[in-house]
């Protein structure tokens, strides 16, 4: 209903910056910086903020230059304090002008701004150890970090009975800790040929330490199906909530009358976590004279993703999972037939269609038996969202991909000696070549809806593209 509107945003930051570096005998280095920012997007009383950083490194390999096995060794530690300002126009509430209805029509915006907004502060501590051995034939770089952001400027989703959908706040504290490891090896190296392997691996733990007084949940997104992605205090950023099966012990409960899974009455069950266990990659590069061939395998282990495409696609009978031979060897979409049409207690006929959900029936007196009730599969919703909880559509987002292959040729310098050109390299690159392994059916786990903070939801996922390119690099 609002009119097509114009937006004019201007942001300004005045920064003053000073840095100092010290070095001592090629062994110890110390860098320090201080920055003062004055931002246009904070209220005057909070608009100037300072932040320092200090970094130290110790090139301990220079202590023992005679040790040939140790080509390079550096220990580094840095501590940085970074301030951050708000986006444009987060302080003063205004009104929305709607399309006129004979007269001027206006509304209150759905976001409540904060006139007392403070800058965000991020404190990060990082330590690293980098070592290379045997003329850089083998080496590693290990980094550990811990980053705490306090007063993060967030649009906090709130109960709409406040009259707003979101409120801009400085929110408590959010923490990220992690490890990043890079390994290098050159197993084979001679005059004409070399083989380099680079492996990297990263794992991040994030956690919401606190939000606002009395508020313990930050809803990152809410979607069709009643599925929400949340950051609860004390939990990682990005837990998926929705409806779940009903359990008896660890078996799923099924309604004996119709063979359908019982579904939880509320949508606040944890059904997934978007954060991966770890990410990693392996790059192999083989160089022979003027040729270089490389390929990169990229992987993610863990992380959950909710697929709205499977939610609807299974219900409409689109996917192969909805048409198969059932436990009796009959097409599952055939009608259900009974051994004795007048007495269903005698069981199903041998030519019956339909399928049996795996789980238990729990009688009113508590007795438990394996479910044997069939469900007809010849109608909309036999599979899919109509009769299943949200959990049925949460998939593991693990993947292994052949991310890139490249082949390059450099014209030998002997050929170029007489020209003004000093280097010519032609490279052929193929990207997103092959998804070697994934769990998410029919979609690329990386092609979800989310961006930035919001991951873990796959809807209308388009196939990702395989790209081919040719590069020519000339140096003069």
């Amino acid at each position, binding site marked *: *209903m609002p009119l097509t*509107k*114009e*937006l*004019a945003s*201007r*942001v*300004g930051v*005045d920064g003053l910056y000073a840095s100092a570096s010290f070095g001592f005998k090629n062994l110890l280095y110390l860098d320090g910086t201080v920055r003062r920012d*004055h*931002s*246009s*997007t904070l*209220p*005057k009383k909070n*608009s100037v903020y300072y932040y320092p950083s200090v970094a130290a490194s110790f090139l301990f390999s220079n202590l023992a230059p005679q040790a040939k096995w140790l080509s390079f060794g550096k220990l580094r530690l840095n501590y940085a304090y970074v301030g951050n300002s708000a986006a*444009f*126009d987060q302080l*003063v509430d*205004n*009104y929305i*002008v*709607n*399309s006129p*209805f004979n*007269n*001027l*029509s*206006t*509304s*209150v915006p*759905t976001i409540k701004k904060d006139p007392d907004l403070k800058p965000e502060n991020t404190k990060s501590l990082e330590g690293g150890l980098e070592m290379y051995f045997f003329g850089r034939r083998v080496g590693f770089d290990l980094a550990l970090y811990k980053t705490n952001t306090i007063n993060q400027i967030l649009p906090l*989703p*709130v*109960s*709409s*009975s*406040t*009259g*707003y*959908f979101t*409120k801009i706040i400085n929110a408590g504290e959010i923490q990220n800790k992690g490890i990043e490891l890079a390994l290098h090896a050159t197993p084979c190296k001679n005059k004409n040929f070399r083989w380099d392997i680079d492996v990297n691996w990263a794992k991040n733990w994030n956690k919401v330490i606190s939000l*606002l007084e*009395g*508020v313990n*949940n930050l*809803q990152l997104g*809410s979607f*069709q*199906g*009643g599925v*929400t992605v*949340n950051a609860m205090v004390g939990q990682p950023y990005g837990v998926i*909530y929705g409806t779940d099966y009903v359990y008896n012990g660890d078996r799923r409960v099924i309604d004996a009358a119709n063979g359908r899974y019982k579904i939880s*009455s*509320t*949508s606040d069950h944890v059904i997934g976590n978007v954060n991966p266990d770890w990410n990693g990659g392996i790059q192999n590069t083989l160089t022979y004279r003027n040729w270089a061939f490389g390929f990169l395998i990229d992987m993610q282990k863990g992380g959950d993703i909710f697929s709205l495409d499977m939610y609807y696609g299974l219900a409409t009978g689109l996917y192969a999972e909805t048409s198969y031979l059932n436990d009796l060897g009959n097409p599952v979409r055939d009608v259900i037939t009974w051994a004795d049409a007048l007495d269903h207690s005698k069981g199903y006929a041998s030519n019956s269609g339909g399928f049996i959900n795996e789980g238990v029936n729990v009688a009113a007196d508590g007795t438990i038996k394996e479910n044997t009730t069939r469900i007809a599969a010849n109608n*909309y919703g036999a599979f899919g*969202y*109509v009769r299943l909880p949200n959990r049925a559509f949460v998939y593991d987002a693990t993947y292994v991909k052949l991310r890139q292959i490249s082949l390059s040729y450099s014209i030998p310098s002997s050929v170029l000696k007489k020209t003004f050109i000093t280097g010519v390299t032609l490279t052929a690159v193929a990207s997103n070549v092959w998804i070697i392994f994934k769990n998410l059916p029919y979609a690329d786990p990386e092609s979800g809806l989310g961006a930035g903070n919001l991951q873990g939801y796959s809807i209308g996922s388009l196939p990702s593209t395989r790209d081919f390119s040719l590069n020519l690099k000339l140096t003069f």
Partner: protein
Amino acid sequence: MFMSCGKLEKLNQNIKDPTVVPGESLFTGAQKYLADQMVTPNVNRNIFELISQYWTETTYTDEVNYDIITRPIPGNHWNSLYVNVLKGFDESAKVISAAGTLPGDGPSVVTNKLAIIEVMNVYTYSVLVETFGNIPYTEALVASVLLPKYDDGLTIYKDLISSLNAAIGKMDQTAGSFGGTDIMYGGDVPKWYKFANSMKLRMGMVLSDVDNALASTTVGEAAPNVILSNADNASFKYLAAQPNTNPIYDNLIASGRNDFVPANTFVDLMNDRNDPRRPLYYTEIDTSTTGTPKMAYVGGIYGASNNFLGFSHVSAQILTPTFEMLFFDAAEAEFLLAEGAERGFSVGGTAEEHYNNAIRASIVYWGGVDADATTYLAEPKVAYTTATGTWQQKIGEQKWIALYLRGFDAWTSYRMLDYPILVAPPDAKSVLPLRLTYPTSEQTLNGVNRAAAAAAIGGDDVGTKLFFDKH
């Protein structure tokens, strides 16, 4: 070298959106959002027309089978009413109060405006209470309270009646109020007075099984001052051009979709009584299998998959962009007076008189003539003395027919009278809803208070009876 303090902060000014607007414009905005939410048949926002079995769906039959989770229908209803409507009225009242009497206006104009806003607030909150039961009320709409508690539904309803009484008391019918910024009545205070009393009548009747004494007093006070003529109907008149067209037009015509047909439960009942409103409500189709046409009104099978072309369609007059939406009409007021008479409240006149007036008013409103009404009232199944069943059934069924397109009001009436007989479709996800469940997002945004409210009302299920639904 450096910008001075003042100059840098000036960059943060939003030069495109106003920080000051007239309070009346906020009233216009909120009023339209309210009308839209109550009349829209959009399956993401309002399925009362389906729950009340006026219409059924064609290809996609989730909503008519009471799936209110896949599309966040309770959430959209709740959100629209709190954020777009109540907040708008609240802000409108604040700005109008602060502005004081405008030049050229008499002294009671501001009071009248505030009284009218209060009437709209009461209406909106009554819709929320009748939908969900306990809801945030005393702590709602306060930006500093992020976790408002839910108040008891009956307590809120009684407080709403008090507020309504106060607003009615403040109205000065000799003075003006809003002008064209009030799309419902153009600021006509005597008509607002009648609408407010009609609401009071309805709210009093809703309490008749729960607090009979209060119901009796409330109804008795309101009865002489309600809407009795279609000229005083509380309606919202849409415009010819988007985005100000009737949402029914938007969803059934402009969308290019064919999602709805009239339901067989509704059409069959009207066929059974030779109701003259049938051609005004929906179209006839040719049901013959031979060459000779055989026209009839045929409703789609409620809850089932229906081929759009095989059934009657919503009538052309409803599908125009400017078709008005009704908040309250003379027919409804007369039916409520009939119910009041049957309960022994002092409304004046007999139940039969009010019943007849109601049916007459409804037929004329929809485009029929008085003579049609006379013929209709002579039908044995329609005439008050010979119609089947208890007074609840007689009034309930006729009121259902008259409340076409007002699924929400029909739903409340059904829960009070238990007629017409409505049966859930065979594939329904739940029993026939007697309330909507709390929005799913409340579980993560205000979980503790929502859980407390769920316990207090006897469970956050669609089958939980609300405080006024006693039978």
